[in-house]
């Protein structure tokens, strides 16, 4: 079935097709339509799920954790301040190994109050142990919910699907809605091997001393790393069934590129025609869109970026006191590689400022002009 829908509704449709059994969510701009459509779906019976109304995002995640611990496939969604309020329980969801899937609409953090897009809200949660998928189209958002459950439930790690506020959340695109029976075949019912069970009573999350806590952390890291091959495997399986592939990254005109632009989300979509334009002007430029940010695809990036002449990373986020987050991590991944290219780090589009084609082109041209980067942050278009 073809359907025109907004990014927020693509999350709801993804949860519907994944047969989510419990939804616990609190509305926040620009995420509200996700919850609104899901509550409609529950009310009209098209989604047979328990819809739990809560009084805050902290409670939304706490209720999601309870549902997931009871063995239910659980979905929630939030944004910005809501995600920040969840912070404590995000750690808990990972530590308790609950494969919850959540949509997060990237909205800049207040103050000042703002609703426009920026990735700093989700970047600030990168150390909570959640898988993070940064999407760049409405179709990808819908498909990513289904794929996220398939990955998360195999390794007992929660997953966050991230989309740009308004640019994706409120933009309508034509979407192929997969057939329910095919989704059921791709994503079977979740059987939680560690669920709350009155037949086998157990205590969860109890006090654990230095003698075993370390091992539990080791197991989280070991298992989130398994998501790297799993995204490729489940992506190929998805492609066989639905004709669309989703892996760790997406490349565009990369093969012979001397200068590579690395970015994410909707900036990557705008960058594609820039690459075309600059190719037609005779420049060997290429693009990598990082889709899965946690776990970070370090090995793949080492393979694709070592030996290039120059790399520039464009971040729509900032880790104050350091640099953009994608820039810092791409640099870290390549540090021990021989023939690592010099890397430029640009910050653009904070608070939802547009990053149009000419701005992206300007960053590539500045990179081509300079011999070596001289600063950790290159600001673009600051009015000064």
């Amino acid at each position, binding site marked *: 079935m073809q359907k025109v829908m907004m990014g927020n509704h693509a999350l709801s449709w993804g949860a519907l097709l994944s047969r989510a059994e419990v939804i616990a969510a609190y509305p926040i701009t620009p995420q509200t339509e996700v919850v609104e459509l899901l509550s409609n779906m529950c009310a009209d019976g098209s989604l047979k799920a328990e819809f739990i109304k809560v009084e805050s995002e902290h409670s939304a995640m706490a209720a999601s954790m309870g549902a997931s611990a009871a063995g239910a496939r659980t979905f929630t969604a939030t944004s910005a301040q809501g995600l920040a309020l969840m912070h404590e329980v995000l750690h808990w969801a990972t530590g308790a*190994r609950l494969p919850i899937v959540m949509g997060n609409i990237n909205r800049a953090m207040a103050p000042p109050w703002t609703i426009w897009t920026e990735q700093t809200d989700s970047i600030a949660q990168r150390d909570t142990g959640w898988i993070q998928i940064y999407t760049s189209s409405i179709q990808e958002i819908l498909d990513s919910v289904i794929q996220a459950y398939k990955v998360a439930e195999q390794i007992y790690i929660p997953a966050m699907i991230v989309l740009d506020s308004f640019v994706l959340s409120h933009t309508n695109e034509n979407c192929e809605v997969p057939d329910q029976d095919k989704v059921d075949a791709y994503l079977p019912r979740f059987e939680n091997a*560690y669920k709350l069970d009155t037949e086998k009573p*157990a*205590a969860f*999350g*109890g006090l654990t001393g230095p003698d*075993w806590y370390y091992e*539990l952390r080791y*197991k989280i890291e070991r298992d989130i790393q398994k998501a790297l091959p799993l995204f490729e495997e489940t992506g190929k399986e998805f492609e066989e069934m639905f004709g669309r592939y989703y892996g760790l990254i997406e490349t565009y005109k990369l093969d012979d590129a001397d200068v590579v632009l690395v970015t994410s989300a909707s900036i990557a979509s705008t960058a594609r025609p820039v690459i075309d334009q600059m190719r037609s002007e005779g420049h060997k430029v290429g693009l990598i869109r990082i889709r899965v940010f946690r776990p970070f695809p370090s090995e793949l990036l080492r393979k694709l970026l070592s030996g290039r002449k120059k790399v520039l990373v464009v971040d729509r986020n900032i880790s104050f006191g350091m640099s953009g987050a994608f820039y810092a991590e791409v640099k870290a991944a390549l540090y021990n590689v021989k023939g690592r290219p010099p890397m430029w780090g640009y910050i653009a589009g904070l608070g939802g400022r547009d990053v149009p084609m000419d701005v992206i082109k300007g960053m590539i041209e500045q990179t081509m002009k300079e011999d070596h980067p001289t600063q950790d942050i290159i600001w673009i278009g600051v009015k000064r």
Partner: protein
Amino acid sequence: MSEEIKWEKESDMPLMAMSLGRMTVNKTGSWRNLRPVIDKEKCNKCGICWKFCPDVSIEIDSEDYPVVILDFCKGCGICAVECPKDAIGMVKEA
């Protein structure tokens, strides 16, 4: 009461901190500074101490008297405060 679980390596454990039995393996009596002592002369067997004990560390014996299970009692003193007959005293552990 379950036996204590002994793990030797990470693969022996579940993915999360999950007891393989009831919390009875987790003996907390050593946390106690003050020990409740029940005066059977004053006790009227009302069971309020049994009801209020937050750690379910009070059982009722065959004569209906409360008995503190010292393996688990943390010595919080709630039983002593709630007792309507002042039949529970808190004495310092040695």
